[in-house]
C-alpha cells in the first residue's frame, strides 16, 4: 500500500497531532497547523483522529495510489480532482489502484489536509510522524515531499460521509484572533495597548509553520525602564525565557509574530500575550495579506472557547456516527 508523489505542490509535509514532551530540548510540538481540519479529514476516512495525513500549503500535490483506499480533503478550499474529475472537499471518496489525485487553485484558506484510510505510515520519531523540517526530523526523511517519493500506508477500515458547512471551522474576514494579554503587557503604554486591539493587521509574507508575522498596525510605545541585567538593549528584549505556543512577540515593537506549531522554544523577546488554542487553527488558514484583528479575552473566555472547540469536535463525531 503506497501513495506515490508525482509532484509535491509548494510545500507538502506529513503531519499528525504532533510531538509533545520535547519542547524543553528545543523540539517543538509540530503537527497540523489546523488540527480541527486534520481531525475532521481523519474521521471522514475512518482513521484515528491523530493519524498522519498530508498538509499541503497554498497548492496541492499530484498523487498516485497503488491500492484501493478512501481519501478526504478538509481545511482550506483546495478542490480535489480524481483523474481530472471534480471531487468535493470535506467528504470521503474512494480511489482505485492507478488513480491520480490532483488539485485546482486554492479558493480560500491556506492549508488542506489530505487524509488516506490507514494513515501515512512513515516511521515514528520521538513519538510522532510529524515533519519538523527545520530540525530535519520525522515525516518523510525529515523534509517536505519531493517528486518520486513513495509514502507507505497503514491498514485501515475505510470510513464514509461528509461534513456539512455548518460543522466546519473557518476564519472570518477579518480573522478575529482571541488573545490573553500576557506577562509583559504592562511594558507597553495604555494607549499602545488600546491601539493594538483597534488596528486591523495584515498577514505578512513571512508566515510559516514557525510563526505568523503581522504588519500594518501601529508601532508599540513602551513604558520606559532600565533593562534588567542579562536582557538585550531594545525595550522589547527580556532575559531569555520560554515561549508558549501562540505567544505573541513584537521584536523592536513593530510587527507582532504569533509562534505556531514549529515554534522556537525560547529567546529574548517579550511576549505581549498569547493567542488562545482554539484560534491557533484559524491562523493556519490565513493567507499572506489577509486581514486579522486581535481580540482581548479573559482566562474564563479562553477556557470556554476551548470547551466550545471540544464540543465542535464532538458534533463531528456524532454526525459521522463515531
Amino acid at each position: 500500500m503506497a501513495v506515490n508523489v508525482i509532484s509535491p505542490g509548494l510545500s507538502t509535509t506529513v503531519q499528525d497531532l504532533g510531538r509533545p514532551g520535547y519542547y524543553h530540548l528545543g523540539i517543538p510540538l509540530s503537527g497540523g497547523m489546523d488540527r480541527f481540519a486534520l481531525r475532521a479529514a481523519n474521521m471522514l476516512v475512518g482513521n484515528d483522529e491523530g493519524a498522519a495525513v498530508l498538509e499541503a500549503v497554498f497548492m496541492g500535490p499530484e498523487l498516485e495510489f497503488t491500492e484501493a483506499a478512501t481519501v478526504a480533503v478538509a481545511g482550506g478550499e483546495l478542490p480535489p480532482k480524481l483523474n481530472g474529475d471534480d471531487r468535493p472537499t470535506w467528504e470521503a471518496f474512494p480511489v482505485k489502484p492507478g488513480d491520480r489525485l490532483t488539485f485546482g487553485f486554492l479558493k480560500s484558506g491556506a492549508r488542506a489536509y489530505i487524509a488516506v484510510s490507514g494513515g501515512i505510515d512513515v516511521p515514528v520519531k520521538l513519538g510522532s510522524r510529524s515533519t519538523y523540517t527545520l530540525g530535519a526530523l520525522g515525516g518523510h526523511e525529515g523534509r517536505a515531499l519531493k517528486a518520486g517519493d513513495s509514502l507507505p500506508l497503514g491498514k485501515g477500515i475505510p470510513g464514509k460521509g461528509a461534513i456539512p458547512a455548518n460543522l466546519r471551522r473557518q476564519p472570518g474576514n477579518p480573522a478575529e484572533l482571541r488573545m490573553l494579554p500576557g506577562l509583559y503587557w504592562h511594558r507597553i503604554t495604555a494607549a499602545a495597548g488600546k491601539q493594538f486591539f483597534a488596528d486591523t493587521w495584515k498577514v505578512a509574507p513571512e508566515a510559516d509553520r514557525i510563526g505568523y508575522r503581522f504588519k500594518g498596525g501601529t508601532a508599540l510605545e513602551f513604558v520606559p525602564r532600565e533593562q534588567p541585567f542579562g536582557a538585550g538593549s531594545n525595550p522589547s528584549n527580556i532575559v531569555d525565557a520560554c515561549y508558549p505556543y501562540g505567544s505573541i512577540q513584537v521584536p523592536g515593537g513593530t510587527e507582532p509574530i504569533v509562534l505556531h506549531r514549529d515554534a522556537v522554544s525560547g529567546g529574548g523577546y517579550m511576549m505581549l500575550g498569547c493567542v488562545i488554542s482554539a484560534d491557533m487553527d484559524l491562523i493556519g488558514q490565513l493567507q499572506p495579506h489577509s486581514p486579522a484583528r486581535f481580540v482581548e479575552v479573559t482566562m474564563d473566555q479562553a477556557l470556554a472557547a476551548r470547551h466550545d472547540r471540544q464540543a465542535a469536535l464532538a458534533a463531528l463525531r456524532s454526525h459521522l456516527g463515531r
Partner: protein
Amino acid sequence: MTQAPLFRPVAEHGLLVEFGDRLEEATHAAVLRLDQALAADPFPGFAEAIPAYVNLLVRFDPLVTDHVRVAAHLQALLRQPAGAAQAGALRTVDVVYDGPDLAEVAALSGLTTGQVIATHLSGAYRVALYGFAPGYAYLSGLPDPIRLPRKEAAIRGVPAGSVIIAAGQCIVTTLTMPTGWWIIGHSPTPILDPNGPRPFLFDVGDRVQFRQVTA
C-alpha cells in the same frame, strides 16, 4: 537569595513560574530545582515543563486541571526541602577559533585575539537550558572579560556548528539559523543527532569544557 516566585497564567494551557527578572545563578538554580521536583511528582493533566534562566513554563491540559490547582501543586513542591544539586557529567567540546567576529570581540573587550581565545577556554561552563531551536544548549559561565551585549542586528544563515557568545552565555549552534550573537569559532563536535540513540550530547546541568583544535 531568591524571593518567592510569581505564578503567571500566560496561556490557558500554561503557567509561568517566575523566580526573578535578572540573570543570576541562584535564580536559575531555583528554576531547575522546581523542574526536577515536578518531573519526580507531576500532577494530573501535566503536559510538560520548560526551564529557562529565570522562569519555568509549566504546560497542562486545562480541561483536566486549572491554573489555581497547578499553582497549589507547585507551591507544595516548593515547600519541600531542596535535594542535593547534581554535579552533572563533564563534556568536552572542540573549537576551531576562526570565527568572523573574533577580531571585533577582541577590540570591544580590549584584548588580543589570543587573549579572547584563552579567556573563552578558561571558562567553567554549565548547560543552563535548551532553547530557541533543537539542540541549542545555552551555556552559562562565559568569563567576564568577553561578556558583550548582543549585536545591533542579527546575521542570517550562520552555519550549524558555530561557537557564538553574548550576554555571559555561549552556544554551539546545531542548525543554520540567524543570530545576533558574536561568532568566535566553529566546533566539529556533534551536538545534535535526532536519529541517534542519544539525540543530544548534553543534559541540563552538565559541565562543559572547550578544547582548542586547529581544523
